[in-house]
């Protein structure tokens, strides 16, 4: 087990290094001069070329690119992502301030997706070809097809503006999280519905299920223990990968619902060509993907005896 985790961690290192290189390069090749942008934040200021040159020097942008990269990487290794070109505030501190909000949103969305997608998908698989199954498949397709921003506006219109059951935006209580989490969870919920339906169908057709039923085990025990055991690995893999993807999805949701999370920060950074922010976000997202994929792999390793056996053989 420890050897398996260690091997995966070693494999993650070059991925993260590649991410730093891509993050840095993206900032450099993207059009726009961040020094000029910083001096023209209001859109009405008119800095001279000399002032822009001075700002480039102040920001260290006049140094050779390899020097900039090594310097940035060195700081990143100590947890310092630099200072925002626009706000003059520490990017690391901003991430630390915003991370709990984004994580809370992502976790809420994940819980909702699991609560919606998993039981309904399993039920659809169990009662395959019933009316509920057919309706569920249509719903899953609709959830996958609906654009997040449209759904967000519709939910605000219905639940906040018309019914006034929930707030339109902002933070404050668990109620503020419901609509954004719902929007963020729809894609995953639909995916889980389809996936869990498929694994349930496959599991129910297995010989061990027939054997379990033949032994006279209660139907609920057959389904929840024997059938689901085999379905756990693919579900864990999908859920693990989703947590990284949710960060990307949170960008639109955070802007629409006025949630000051990492997604909103990244959008501002991208629009402003705020290199340190963009670089920090890319690296952060890569790290989240790596960590959660690793966690999913370890979880699969734990629940799936065949993987453990394979690891020993390897």
């Amino acid at each position, binding site marked *: 087990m420890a050897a398996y985790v260690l091997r995966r961690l070693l494999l993650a290192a070059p991925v993260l290094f590649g991410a730093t290189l891509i993050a840095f390069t993206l900032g450099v090749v993207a059009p726009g001069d961040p020094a000029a942008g910083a*001096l*023209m934040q209001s859109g009405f200021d008119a800095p001279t070329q000399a002032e822009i040159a001075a700002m480039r020097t102040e920001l260290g942008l006049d140094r050779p690119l390899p020097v900039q990269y090594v310097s940035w990487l060195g700081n990143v290794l100590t947890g310092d992502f630099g200072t925002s070109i626009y706000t003059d*505030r520490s990017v690391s501190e901003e991430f630390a301030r915003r991370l709990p909000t984004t994580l809370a949103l992502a976790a809420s969305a994940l819980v909702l997706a699991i609560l919606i997608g998993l039981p309904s998908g399993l039920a659809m698989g169990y009662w395959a070809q019933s009316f509920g199954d057919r309706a569920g498949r249509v719903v899953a397709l609709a959830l996958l097809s609906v654009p997040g921003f449209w759904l967000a506006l519709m939910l605000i219109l219905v639940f906040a503006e018309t019914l006034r059951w929930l*707030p339109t935006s902002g933070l404050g209580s668990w109620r503020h999280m419901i609509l954004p989490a719902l929007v963020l969870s729809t894609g995953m919920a639909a995916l889980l519905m389809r996936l869990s339906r498929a694994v349930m169908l496959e599991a129910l057709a297995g010989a061990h299920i027939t054997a379990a039923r033949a032994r006279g085990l209660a139907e*609920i025990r057959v389904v929840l223990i024997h059938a689901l055991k085999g379905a756990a690995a693919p579900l864990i893999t999908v859920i693990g990968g989703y947590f990284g993807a949710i960060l990307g999805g949170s960008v639109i949701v955070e802007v629409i619902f006025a949630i000051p999370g990492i997604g909103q920060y990244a959008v501002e950074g991208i629009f402003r060509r705020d290199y340190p922010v963009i670089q920090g976000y890319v690296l952060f997202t890569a790290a989240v993907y790596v960590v959660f994929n690793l966690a999913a792999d370890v979880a699969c390793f734990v629940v799936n005896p065949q993987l453990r056996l394979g690891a020993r053989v390897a």
Partner: protein
Amino acid sequence: MFNTILPHRLTAAALAALVALAAPIAPDANAQTREMVMAAPRDLAPGAEDAYYVSSILYVWEPLVQFGPDGGPVPQLLSGWEMSEDATRWTFTLRDGVTWHNGDALTAEHVVGTFERIIQVSPKRSPFYSMHIDRAYPGLVAIEAQDALTFTMEFDSPRPTLPHQMVNFSSAVFHPDNFDADGNFNDLVIGTGPFRLVSHTPDQELVLERFEEYWGTPAGTERVVVRTIPDADTRAAALRAEEIVGVMDLGAMPPEQAASLAEDDRFELNAHPSSISHFLHVSGGDGPLSDMRLRQAISMAIDREAIVQLYRGFTTPTANFLNVNNPFHIDVPLVHDPEAAADLAAEVLGAERMDIRLIIPSWGVARYPYRAQAELIQFMLQPIGLDVTIQLLDRAAFNEVRQSGDYDLSLSTLGLPNADPITVFRDYFTRDGAMSVRNAIGYENPDMTALLEAALAERDLDLRAGIYADIQRLAATELPTIPLMNDTTVIVHHVDVVGYRQTIYGGTLNTAAWAD
């Protein structure tokens, strides 16, 4: 068994969830009776590292000089000023009885300290206006306190329009104890305004409370919460849901949403021309539009009234470079004559047609109907032989393309940093002017250069105003850039709120009060 039990359990769970969800939010009586909750599209308190900490529209800090009703300078923290005969020395007298939010009395030493900080940190970044001593106070030699309420400023050359240059952000005054060694704020901002900032959660909300020792008319409400809601649709929804009672800041309510809200009896609209103007910038130099006749043809071919309709009437058409709210603005007749435009264009193009690249910035699309505006211009220029291709660029790419001159036309705005237009005249109408370089305008005319030099040398304000008028006329003829409209800022508020009106810059949050 499982077949029958599970659906019931699921139904019960679903019902329980629905019941929990269906409980309406208990209205916060306290918020409705005491707190006035507003919203803005951006965080109006960028914080300690910002030049001003908060925007002037929150009435936390005050400037020495403020916009008057006609856009000219009026004293705010001053009781008066006096110019020396050679216009190089100004003596300012502070209003007596002004108290800082920390209880100290405002003195001339505090003002000197504020200017020392400006000198220390210039140029200091801000999303409102950059703080820059050389641009706001060029040639400043000394600033000294003469007594508790009097200070002087000395310049190396005449500055007859100094009060015009000091309007609003240019003369923001802060308590000198409010800064650290780097010139950043060391705590929540200490101002002299009718509101004091009591808390700030970045990018989320800020809370203001009425400052009871304010020297002037007290604020109309005890406590104001300003939430940050970046998305315009969400802001409109929050208004309809009555979570907020008003909006503030530039672009607070885009024309489309404002018009929609106007149909709801619960809301009132208030619009006021701002200090922002809309332009069709022209890439000059050796570009295809360097021929003045083509620029004139474009200007005549554009039906500005039609564009105004895209803004739901919340702009006014103009042919003048200088914004209508500037005290030196003159009226320039609007000319819309497609036939004359086509004739003029034909003089340059002959029977040929010309491909034109019109770029628009993504940030503008969020605030203005730029897409429709660009398509309308595309349609209007087609008959005069110009085939326009529209390209939407994000802010950074837009700025880079503009500066490189790799464009023909661009939709742009200009906000006046203060009430003296000499800075923007020089920025646009000289080849090495900052805006000329930034937009690759490349305009140069000896007559214009002579007028600019004459204006700078003129000490008499009336005579200088005459030169400014000549500059505007020349610009309206030669069109270094093509003026389109004067912008109007629209705010929307609930009818339960009274005394909240839009001004040239910001709303009257200080007089906003509950109707009952």
